[in-house]
């Protein structure tokens, strides 16, 4: 191997070469790009497609692209999609079946070869979200084989966060703007150049093929300073309480009625959430009835059909559906998957049409539990 195992620096030409090299390797490179008034994730043909000079202005229920003067490529957050759109796509066919002339049925599993993905610009929060979906979809007894196929070969290039948005709160979920292990390469953008750290052998090999220089002290210091400063500029925060226990003890909270008045039960929050994994499956026959297909598609606990058993939905009220979302995300997720289901990316806050804010709801629940009439049974004092 070369000198590339230590941190290195790429300039704009190096970044161009990075994308070109991945494309030349036959990879489908996905990264941020501007479309329809937002920074979306889509296939990149070259580094020119990156959103140089675009930033975002975020608030609850509001997202606006804004011009930046510094030409930065990775100074945006909480876009309308996440990497799950590619690793755990919204629709996929699982299998089909055909009646045979002799009266039998032939089943064909749908196992298309996965594209060889390279994800460019994975935020530290989204890197954690991918790790959470890995645990959910491949870490248990029943592996989602389609997810595993798409995920196994994916090459991850993180972009550390130097520009948190007004709806970001990763620090209060135990994360932060620096990338945890799990990436192949990690970039930190400083003034038009990129500090690169290598996280895997494949990452090292790729870096060796790119025009780069060894990291100078000035760039390293500036990169660390920018990421450190981002830590203190989170737009929001979860309250400093044991959120898992708070939610576990809040089933009867009055706050659920309050949020149910405002919630449209439209499902946007779960669709944009990078960790929400719920799906439904539908069998679809054709007119002849000789051919049938099973399709999987994203579903959500906000969908009435989601909890429909014989006779009706289990969670009929908006109250019970919003409660399911928050309680699963922040509490029962620990019971199932040994972590929280929230990485603090802020998407559910920005992309909720009415601006319901998960941090505000948790804060209100904490206030209700701590100061309300049930203060003596404060779940936070239970172990």
């Amino acid at each position: 191997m070369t000198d590339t195992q230590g941190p290195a620096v790429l300039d704009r030409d190096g970044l161009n070469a990075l994308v070109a090299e991945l494309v030349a390797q036959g990879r489908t490179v996905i990264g941020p790009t501007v479309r329809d008034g937002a920074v979306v994730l889509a296939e990149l043909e070259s580094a020119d497609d990156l959103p140089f000079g675009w930033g975002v202005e975020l608030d609850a229920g509001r997202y606006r692209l804004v011009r930046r003067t510094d030409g930065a490529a990775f100074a945006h957050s909480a876009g309308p999609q996440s990497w799950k759109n590619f690793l755990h796509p919204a629709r996929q066919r699982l299998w089909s079946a055909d009646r045979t002339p002799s009266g039998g049925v032939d089943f064909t599993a749908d196992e298309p070869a996965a594209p060889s993905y390279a994800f460019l610009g994975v935020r530290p929060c989204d890197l954690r979200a991918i790790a959470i979906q890995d645990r959910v979809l491949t870490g248990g007894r029943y592996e989602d084989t389609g997810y595993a196929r798409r995920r196994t070969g994916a090459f991850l290039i993180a972009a550390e966060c130097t520009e948190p948005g007004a709806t970001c709160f990763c620090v209060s979920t135990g994360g932060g703007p620096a990338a945890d292990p799990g990436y192949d390469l990690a970039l930190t953008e400083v003034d038009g150049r990129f500090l690169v750290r290598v996280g895997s052998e494949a990452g090292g090999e790729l870096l060796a093929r790119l025009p780069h220089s060894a990291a100078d002290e000035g760039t390293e210091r500036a990169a660390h300073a920018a990421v450190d400063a981002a830590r203190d500029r989170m737009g929001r925060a979860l309250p400093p309480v044991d959120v898992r226990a708070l939610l576990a003890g809040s089933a009867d909270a009055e706050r659920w009625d309050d949020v149910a008045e405002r919630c449209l039960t439209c499902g946007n929050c779960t669709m944009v959430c990078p960790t929400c994994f719920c799906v439904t499956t539908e069998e679809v026959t054709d007119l002849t009835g000789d051919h049938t297909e099973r399709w999987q598609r994203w579903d959500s606990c906000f969908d009435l059909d989601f909890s429909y058993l014989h006779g009706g939905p289990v969670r009929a009220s908006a109250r019970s559906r919003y409660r399911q979302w928050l309680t699963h995300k922040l509490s029962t997720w620990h019971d199932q998957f040994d972590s929280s289901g929230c990485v603090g990316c802020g998407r559910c806050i920005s992309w909720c049409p009415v601006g319901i804010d998960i941090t505000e709801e948790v804060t209100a629940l904490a206030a209700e539990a701590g100061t309300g009439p049930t203060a003596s049974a404060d779940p936070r004092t239970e172990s």
Partner: protein
Amino acid sequence: MAPTLAVFKLASCDGCQLTLLDCEDELLALAGEVEIAHFLEASSAVAPGPYDLSLVEGSVTTAEDAERVRAIRANSRHLVTIGACATAGGIQALRNYADVDEYRRVVYAHPEYISTLATSTPVSAHVGVDFELRGCPIDRRQLIEVITAFLAGRKPDVPNHSVCFECKRRGTVCVTVAHGTPCLGPVTHAGCGALCPAYRRGCFGCFGPSGSVNLPALIPVLRRDGMDDAAVERFLHTFNAPAFDEELRS
């Protein structure tokens, strides 16, 4: 023998029946599975009922319509209403909020020739309906799915959730959040595939209320995005006005 299919029309524009003719890729297969016994838009040859599956387009706006729809029901084993007129009264239900006599006087040279009811009502207000397929017009794929499901004896895969589900699955950037464009998607029944937001327009609510609607919660967002009271009312008073009105009152 193949099951018989009939298509009927009350007060409507014919757009929904045309959707059936528009199913070009599936028409041959369909003709192989059902006997099209009554479909005046396609053929004047009519076979007598009873019909196994009747598709009914249009709303009830005359006493005659009301009588006819009862006869259709009596002559149909399975009755599916198609389109906003048949499922919600349609755009002609705007008369429900106006003085029909005044309309008659203003619009027609000989108002005395016009015999009409004061309201436009959905078929379900008159007879039992086995399934309601929404939309103005209905979606082609959903129509085929309803017929296919009927042939297979299963429930159609026609989800009750909001347009936002389809919009996000399609990867469209939300026009409300990112552009400040008023959109009825969060309260509207899915089915169109979130067509309008994909063209940077807000949803017009063609499919009527979804299975889970909190319309009062959306009104402040419409106002924030520049609609005054009159504009909000106009936005909701299109193809499914009575259905949305009911949601506002509940």
